[in-house]
């Protein structure tokens, strides 16, 4: 898909979520979710825990397989293809190739424990993009500089603070030069005083024009960095709009109630 159409311009949707639904056993977690994310946009998913926002994020890169609906990245259907007029699941390796286009950052960092910071960043480019070690290392050092951790290149994850680990995890995801970054509560496992350093890296990333979908409880981040906010509750989108609209002047009673409690 890349390079075929006209160059992407800001304002065009890069991610399209259409009628996505998901249930775990008898519990329905997502019901008929629809939204678009445009190039360069930062969209924050907010809502109470159990509202389905993390599941929604994981449906985008198919870590969870939605039962209904479609996810398109840059016009390409994720996880499935149409064959003889019906949807067929992609082969595991085809799905893996699609995932290289999306970076993901987890609540618990999930850095590879047996690799140093720089090895964590180089692993996917060397193994998947067939970059030489030298190329990957040059890029990795640039990324380390971008997240402010050049000094920690040779440290193992356990030797780093939570905030440092999460910044390395962001660099690791960026190393694949993704079109889209997914953040699943990136600061929820961090001490309040080091939340700021991770949010700062994310803010710089947003300023550089990276398209981001962020599940977060950090309302100040959603307000200052987010372009748009999607408020979810009970597996549905309750309210969506620009950050200022939703956070400053919520229309829906449920949104007002949630925001009143969290701030």
């Amino acid at each position, binding site marked *: 898909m890349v390079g075929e159409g006209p160059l992407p311009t800001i304002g065009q949707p890069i991610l399209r979520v259409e009628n996505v639904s998901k249930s775990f056993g008898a519990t329905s977690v997502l019901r008929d979710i629809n939204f678009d994310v445009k190039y360069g946009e930062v969209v924050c998913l907010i809502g109470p825990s159990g509202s389905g926002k993390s599941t929604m994020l994981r449906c985008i*890169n198919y*870590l969870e397989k939605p039962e209904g609906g479609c996810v398109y990245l840059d016009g390409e259907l994720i996880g499935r293809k149409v064959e003889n007029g019906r949807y067929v699941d992609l082969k*595991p*390796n085809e799905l*893996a*190739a*699609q*995932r*290289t*286009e*999306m*970076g*993901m950052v*987890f609540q*618990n960092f*999930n*850095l*590879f*424990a*047996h*690799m*140093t910071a720089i090895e964590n960043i180089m*692993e*996917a480019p060397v*193994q*998947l993009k067939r970059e030489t070690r030298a190329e990957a290392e040059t890029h990795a050092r640039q990324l380390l500089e971008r997240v402010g951790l050049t000094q920690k290149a040779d440290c*193992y*994850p*356990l*030797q780093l603070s939570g905030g440092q680990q999460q910044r390395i*995890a962001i660099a*690791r*995801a960026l190393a*694949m030069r993704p079109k889209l970054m*997914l953040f699943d509560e990136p600061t929820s496992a961090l001490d309040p005083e080091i939340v700021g350093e991770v949010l700062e890296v994310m803010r710089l990333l947003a300023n550089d024009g990276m398209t981001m979908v962020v599940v977060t409880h950090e309302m100040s981040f959603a307000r200052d960095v987010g372009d748009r906010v999607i408020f979810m509750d009970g597996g549905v989108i309750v309210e969506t709009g620009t950050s200022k609209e939703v956070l400053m002047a919520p229309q829906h009673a449920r949104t007002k109630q949630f925001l009143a409690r969290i701030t």
Partner: protein
Amino acid sequence: MVAITFVLVAMLVHLLVTSSSLQWGVVGHYFFSSDVLSGLIRTLYLTAIAMLVGIVGGTILALMRISKSLVLSMAASSYIWLFRGTPLLVQLLFWFNIASFVPRLSLGIPFGPSFVSASTNSLITILAAAVLGLGLNEAAYMAEIVRAGIVSVDPGQGEAALALGMPKRLIFRRIVLPQAMRVIIPPTGNQTIGMLKGTSLVSVISLPELLYSVQLIYARNFETIPLLVVASLWYLIVTTILSIGQHFVEKYFGRGRTRTEVPSVLSRLFRTHRETQLTGSTDHYA
């Protein structure tokens, strides 16, 4: 308590030095004899090949056991049940006598025509019977060890690799297995030492490994005790070397698991030098 221990040790030493049946001269005479050394070599390569079969087979069985396919996991469970549930000695005798159970082995289409065929006795030599008996039995134990190692790795590790776009096989090889090794290595070291001594069981199928070699000698000269001491000393020497090796392998796979830097193998050997160097920089990691 200390006094009792001291007396007991003194008695043992006295026995070892003065016993008339334990002639150290005889021990010394046979310690490097060519028959004993070739027996030792056979013991070593039997241990190596059987452990190789055990580790490779055990890894495959472990993957089968944790697979989503019921057929694969049931097959692996049944294998483990069978090979762990019968004595190794019985299994060795079974492989040794396999020809009377399956007289001919052939390669071809199952239940169809065969392309090559040979008598079982010519294929399953004594050595092959020993390797099959020891290796297939070991695989059953290694399967459980490898499975425990794989299960011990945080599922978040695999998820992060999946999100990066790594295919399943690559994730297993690069992310899961290296971390599982930390849990797999210590019991595998035990198993290897157990295997080294377990090879002595194949003396019953008259394969001249270390024990059978000394048995052949003392059957001629009746110097039973000195020759058993020769074998025991060799087992102790190899076990000691294996234990040292295990220590370094554990250090390697434990990397990233301590908050302080793990010194390299070489720097451990030159510890005093290293410590003086490190004192200046320890606060860096504190």
